[in-house]
Structure formats: structure tokens, C-alpha cells
């Protein structure tokens, strides 16, 4: 194994060394990996069992039985599927620290399989438009197809998953070519299939960069649109009077926070257990820590903006919504969310010693992830528990706020199972595609140079274009 410097892979080793080193690390599978994969598989199977039991005992007609299911779907959508944004956004502003984190982030696009899978039963749970519920299709009897929200929802979930997978594929093309050329066995065969034709001509490089830009922008748009569709047609219509124009944006921006947190935890695991500590350094944690702080501030700003209008407005429908989602049955959950998603990240991350460490930001990210799960539970379980016969348009009596719904065994199994499934598919993905972006690392060694400036050492960062 080649020697890798403290700060960055490019300092001392040549770029070929880096490539070989990374390819070697990539093909090595440890025992810890095997054990955790087995455990996750068992949990995933248990989750499937829980789902089967749920569907056989309760059917799909009861909304309130499916609240937790919807919540965990939204959780995966907001965290794992938000993670590729951590590769896309810094790439657009050409931040160099992204280079060793971008693949780890993009690989989370694989969780698109899980969300698509989980979304299928939800289609059957949700009522059609004929009940007079609000919808962004401005439904009047017979004007649009009854199940149009279901079609559009499904389409956008699938399109987002596909966009993520394509992005992952395009950005890993050159790396797959390395594996094809430097590995043997099934990895080579696999890489041969997917890296077909890659030779590294300048046209191919140009196209890779070009496609990554377009797919990245497309992924972001799909992310925003999917969250919008899910919120406008699968969350808000259940609550009479929840008319919150900001919430689709809040939901989508939560995905940025969730994505940053997911990537931070992933990086920590890679550093601690995956043997990539030479690549994942302060720089990455620091950059992502700043992003986590920024997104936490975004969270409080968006949430407060919504809350302020409802609190000040005091219309009956607004009071109902506030009571249902915040101050009523889910008060303690809301307080937990507030602390985990805002208070903890804010008051720790403004503090440099925490932000400038390799353990600080990932630890905070764990809090944020738990907080995001609670947040989704608070919203979805509450919304799905509103009686289906609630009048959506008339005055809303406050005593209609339903009691808190606690999870039963099936819910817990499903929740853990789905999360385990997402993590499992990520782990399997790391076996096929290197979890550190090899070609971006090589590119870094071109554009990041350390040199002498009179009496001091400075880093020179090149900005092509």
C-alpha cells in the first residue's frame, strides 16, 4: 500500500499511486462489513414481514394505520435521497473539498430503489380525488382523472430515482474503467458491462462533465418537484385548513439538511471503519459542518415563517393546524424535533472546536437524522390520523384534533426495516462502485498545488474555466 500524506492524497503520492491504492481498498471487503450486511438483511426481511402483516391485518383503506409507513418513506426521501445534493451543489460552485465526498453522497441515489418500492403501497392507501379533498389539480368532478395525483406522484418518485442512478452512473464511468483495467474476476466483468466504451478521450471527459451538470440540475429539480407533489397531494390535503404555501419548500429544503447529515454520518463510518481516513479529513467535515449549520438556520427560518403567520393569523383553520402538528398531541415530539434539528446543531456548530473536528459534525448529524425522523413522524402520522370524514372546507371545530397515534409492532418493524434496507443497498453499492471518487481525486492533484510563497507555504487552488 502506498504512503498517503496527512492532508491530502495528492501531496506526495503520484496520481497513479492514488488510483491503485483506492482500487485496492475498494475491492477489499472486511468482516465487519459482512456482519453488518447480514444484520441489515435480517432487519430488512423483518421489515418486509411487518409490512405483509400490516397489509393483511389492516388492508389499505385505513389511513391512520399507515402514518408511520408514510413517515419512514418521507424520511428516506428527505435524508438518503437528499444526499446526492451534497455532491451536486459543491460541484456547481467548484469547491475542491467535495472531491473525496462526492461519490459517497452520490451513492445514496441507490436509495431511490427503496423509496420507489415503499411508494407503491402508498398509492393504494391514498384516497382518490372524488372525496372532494384539496389537490393541486383543482379537481372538479370529471375534469381530471381520479387518480392523477397518484400517477404524478409515482412518476416523479421514479424519475427522481432514475435521475439519481444516471448521475451515479455517469460520474462513476471513469472509475469503472479503472476497475475494468486493473481488476480481475467478477468486478472486472461488472465494470466491463457498465464502463463500456470509456477510453478517456477529451470528448468523453467533456461529455462526463457536461452530463453531470445537466443531471445534477435535473436531480435538484426533481427533488424539489417530488417533495412538492408529495406534500401537496399526499400530506397537506389530509389536514383541513393546512394551507401553507411555504411547506413544500420547507420539506424540500429539509432534504438538503437531511442529505448533509446522511453524508456526514457516512463519511464518519468510512473514516472509522472503512479505512478511508486518509481521504476524509478536517476539510470535508469542516465544509459539511458549515453546510449543516446553514441548513439548520434555514430550517428555523422556514419553520418560523410558517409558524408566525399561523400564530398571528389565529384563523380557526390555522389554530387547528397548529394544534394538530405542534402544540397538541405531538407537543413532545415537536420539542424533540426543535432541539435535535435546530438547537443542538446551532449551538454546537457555531463553536469552532466542534466544527473543526472529525467527530463533531458527524455526531451532530446523528442528532439531526433522529430529529428528521421525528419530524416526519410528527407530520405524517398526525396528518394521516385525521378522520377521513373531516369537512375540508367548512369551519373546523378544534375538538376534532385526533389523539396521538403510537406505533405498534408492525410500525416499528417497518420503520427499522426500511431504514435497514436503504443502508443495505448503499453498502452493497459500495462493493460495485468505489466509494471515493478516484478520478476526481486525480483531478484534485492537478488543481491543488502546494508551493512556497516567499517565507511561507500556501495552497494554490486552480479554477478551470
Amino acid at each position: 500500500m502506498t504512503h498517503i500524506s496527512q492532508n491530502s492524497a495528492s501531496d506526495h503520492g503520484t496520481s497513479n499511486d492514488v488510483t491503485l491504492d483506492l482500487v485496492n481498498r475498494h475491492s477489499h471487503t472486511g468482516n465487519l462489513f459482512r456482519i453488518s450486511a447480514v444484520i441489515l438483511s435480517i432487519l430488512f426481511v423483518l421489515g418486509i414481514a411487518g409490512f405483509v402483516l400490516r397489509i393483511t391485518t389492516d388492508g389499505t383503506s385505513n389511513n391512520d394505520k399507515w402514518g408511520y409507513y408514510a413517515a419512514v418513506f418521507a424520511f428516506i426521501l428527505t435524508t438518503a435521497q437528499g444526499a446526492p445534493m451534497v455532491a451536486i451543489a459543491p460541484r456547481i460552485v467548484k469547491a475542491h473539498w467535495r472531491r473525496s465526498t462526492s461519490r459517497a453522497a452520490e451513492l445514496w441515489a441507490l436509495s431511490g430503489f427503496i423509496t420507489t418500492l415503499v411508494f407503491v403501497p402508498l398509492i393504494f392507501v391514498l384516497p382518490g380525488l372524488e372525496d372532494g379533498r384539496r389537490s393541486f389539480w383543482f379537481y372538479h368532478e370529471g375534469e381530471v382523472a381520479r387518480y392523477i395525483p397518484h400517477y404524478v406522484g409515482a412518476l416523479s418518485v421514479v424519475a427522481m430515482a432514475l435521475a439519481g442512478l444516471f448521475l451515479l452512473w455517469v460520474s462513476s464511468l471513469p472509475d469503472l474503467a479503472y476497475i475494468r483495467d486493473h481488476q480481475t474476476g467478477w468486478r472486472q466483468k461488472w465494470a466491463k458491462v457498465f464502463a463500456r466504451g470509456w477510453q478517456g478521450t477529451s470528448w468523453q471527459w467533456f461529455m462526463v462533465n457536461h452530463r453531470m451538470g445537466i443531471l445534477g440540475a435535473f436531480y435538484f429539480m426533481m427533488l424539489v418537484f417530488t417533495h412538492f407533489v408529495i406534500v401537496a397531494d399526499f400530506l397537506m390535503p389530509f389536514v383541513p385548513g393546512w394551507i401553507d404555501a411555504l411547506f413544500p419548500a420547507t420539506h424540500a429544503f429539509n432534504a438538503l439538511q437531511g442529505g448533509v447529515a446522511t453524508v456526514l454520518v457516512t463519511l464518519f463510518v468510512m473514516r472509522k471503519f472503512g479505512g478511508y481516513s486518509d481521504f476524509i479529513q478536517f476539510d470535508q467535515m469542516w465544509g459539511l459542518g458549515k453546510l449543516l449549520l446553514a441548513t439548520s438556520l434555514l430550517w428555523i427560518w422556514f419553520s418560523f415563517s410558517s409558524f408566525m403567520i399561523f400564530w398571528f393569523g389565529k384563523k380557526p383553520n390555522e389554530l387547528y393546524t397548529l394544534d394538530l402538528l405542534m402544540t397538541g398531541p405531538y407537543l413532545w415530539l415537536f420539542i424533540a424535533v426543535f432541539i435535535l434539528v435546530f438547537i443542538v446543531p446551532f449551538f454546537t456548530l457555531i463553536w469552532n472546536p466542534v466544527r473543526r473536528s472529525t467527530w463533531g459534525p458527524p455526531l451532530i448529524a446523528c442528532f439531526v437524522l433522529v430529529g428528521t425522523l421525528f419530524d416526519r413522524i410528527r407530520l405524517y402520522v398526525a396528518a394521516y390520523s385525521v378522520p377521513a370524514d373531516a369537512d375540508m372546507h367548512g369551519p373546523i371545530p378544534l375538538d376534532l384534533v385526533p389523539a396521538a397515534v403510537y406505533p405498534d409492532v408492525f410500525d416499528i418493524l417497518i420503520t427499522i426495516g426500511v431504514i435497514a434496507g436503504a443502508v443495505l443497498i448503499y453498502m452493497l453499492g459500495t462493493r460495485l462502485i468505489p466509494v471515493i471518487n478516484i478520478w476526481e481525486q486525480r483531478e484534485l492533484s492537478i488543481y491543488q498545488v502546494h508551493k512556497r510563497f516567499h517565507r511561507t507555504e500556501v495552497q494554490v487552488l486552480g479554477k478551470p474555466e
Partner: protein
Amino acid sequence: MQEYIEHGPKKINRDLLAGVLGLPRWWMPIASVALLVILIAMCAYGWELNRGIGVAGINRPVYWGFYLANFVFWIGISHAGIMVSAILRLTQAEWRRPVTRAAEVLTLFSLLAALSNIFFHLGRPWRFLWIPPYDFARGVWPNVRSPFIWDPSAIGTYLIGSSLFVFIALIPDLAVIRDRVSGKTAKRVYGFLSLGWRGTPRQWKLQTVAGILLSALVLPVFVSVHSIVSWDFAVNVSVEGWHSTIFAPYFIIGAIHSGVSAVAMVMALMVWGWKLENYITRDHFDAIGRLLIVVATTWFFFFALEFFYAIYTLEDPEIALRTMQVFEWPYGPMFFVFIVASYFIPVPLWLLKNVRRSPMGMFLTTISVNIGMWLERFLIIIPGLARKTPFTFDWGTYHPSIVEISLVCFTFAFVTLGVLVFSKFFPLVPIFDVKEGEVFRDEIKVGRRTVPASIRE
């Protein structure tokens, strides 16, 4: 690809202080015109003070008119400075260097212009002192639950914060003027203002840290200011078109849209007026053009979200309001102009590299954006009030009076004059920042290609 022009400190001093040590030929005529407009408008204001707010076009139910639309517009422009200098400082974008000061100064004067609108707007402006909490003697206090109390606290914070920000970044340049200026009094004044700046490594270190720290501190204030301004409207439960949760981010992104456009406009004017084309190059216009595409598109997303959720409820008053906003005379044509001028004309043009890279192209497109954004504020405030209640017998309309129009002109003249006067006494381009850019500029050779690079500590 960036153009490289090495100037050297002497030339930088000479070029950037040209407006301070000398006076461009057009300065006097333009300043006089601005002053004339201000004087005329002040007569109009005197008339309003004398006769009462009745001289304005406002009526029942359109109690808020041009003044408040103009207030929101200028608060929006004031977000330019902090947007450009703080965000670009935090993201270490190299192209920010020559434009930060002008943007910050624009912030200061547009904030003052916005504040002046409050005085035009009040029924009894001489009693504005009842808003701050000072009345210990009688124990009569303001109402902290009112958005009009949050407003002064936020705008005051922003005004103080951004003036201090400008001052701190001005200190090294004041020292440059102190060393260049010839008059004895002037030397003494600049010497006093520059606090005896010498330029030791410690001072420079703190100057750099200050730039980042103050940016990080002013940024949340900047977000809060326009959020609170938006809440002046959004907390109104009675006005259908206003009571929307999205108003805070929507106003912010709209403010950034119009503000960054205004900065691009000022950049073009600086290039022409002070012949700064070697400092504010086509690359800078290119960069701000790219930024504007992102900002404009985000703004459009929020605009669509706001509009969509308004009709999502399918409630009759809301539909009536939107129908009027989009289809009825005179708001319909205005709406069309607004949406075309602020998005559908400029953004496709910005996608063209030639437009982005030409000062004239950027100047015209950004003027179009600001016309559109002024109309946006008008179209949020006035139709909302005119179709305020479900009571059709209380629907109304609005025609601005000559007094209102001249006071709107006042704000434009005021900001023009303010920036001009500032440029006479202080450099509009931060001298030390440009010099720093030259020191930190580097390049990396890869084969036959030279990649522009910059030094990072």
C-alpha cells in the same frame, strides 16, 4: 476564462482614487439634476405635511399605496450589498473584490430611502417617536406584538450593522486617501477617520477575519429584515392575497433578485462613469450574470409556489383577487409587464454569453428586472387591498397622486445623489481588496494550458 491585467499598486491607487481626488465631468450636472428633483419632491412633501395625507391617492380600502410599495422596493435593493459582499465573501468568490463596496454603499442609501418612505406614509409623521420605547416618564410603551415594532428594530440593526461593515472595510482605503490627498484639512480628516491605520500584519489579519465574521453576522440580519417586512403584509389575516406563509422567503429571494440586478446596473455605471473597465471586467459581468440566472429561477419558483397556493384553496375571494391581478385593467397589463420584464426577458438573455459579458447588455436587462420588481411590489400590495374583503361593497381601486409620484422620484434621486456624494469622498472600489486580489492571484500550468488559480491560506 479570466483576463489577466496586472496593474500594480500605484496604478490601482491612481485609477481608483480618480473620483475622489478629481471629479468626472458629468458629476456636477447629474448631481444637480438629482438635487433639483429632491428639492421639488421636498416641496411636495411639505404640501403633504401641510394639507394632510389626503394629497396622496390612497383611499378606503387601499390604505397603503405607492409609499409602501416603494418602501419594499428599496428594502429589496438594500439587500444587494450584503448579498454580494457577505455571501461572496463567505464563499470566497474572487470576482466579488471590486464590487463589494459599491454594493454596500447602495445598501446604505437605499435603506435610508426606504426609511424616508415610512415618514411619507405615516398619517402623523411628527409622532414617529412613539415607536421607540423611551417614554419612561409616563410608562407608555410600544406594542411588541406589532410587526411595525419589529420593523424598526430589524431595519435599525441592519442600518447600524451595514454602516459599521462599510466603515470597517473602508479604514485601509481611508489610509490610502490620507496619504494621497493634498489639502491639510482633508489630510487631517481622513487621518482621523482612518484611526491611524498603518497596515501591520495584525491589522490585516483582523481586517480579513472581520470581513468574514461581519458577513456571517450581517447575513442573518439581512434575512430577518426582509422577512419582517414581508410579515407587515403576511400577518394581515384580512387581506387574502397577503396572508401567505411563503411571504418571507419569497420577499427575500425577490429582494436578492432585484438587489443583485441593481448591483449589476451600478457596475455598468461605474465602468462607464469612472472608466473602470480594467477593474470591473467582462468576467465580473459574466459571473454576476450567472449568479442572476440562479437567483431569478429560484425567485420564479417561489413566485409560482405563492401564486399556486393562493388558488389551491379554491376560495372565491382569492380567485376574485387573482382574476383581477392577472386579467383586469389596469393590473392585467402590469402583471404581464412584470412577469415578462423580471423573468422572461432577462433570463433567456443571460443564458447568452455575449449578453452576460457586455456591460450594456447587463445594464439593460437588469433595468428591466428592476422595473418588473417594482411592479411586483405594487401588484402584491394594491390589488390585495382593493379586493381585500369578501364584502364586494368594500372593493376599491387606487390612482397615485402627483405627490406620491414625485416622492417616489425623490427616493431614486436621493440614492443617486447619495452614491455620487459618497464617490466624491471615498473610493467606490475597495482599493486594498483589489490589491489583495493581485497578490493572491496565481496560475497553475497543466501541459500547454494555464489554469487561473488563487492562493488559499
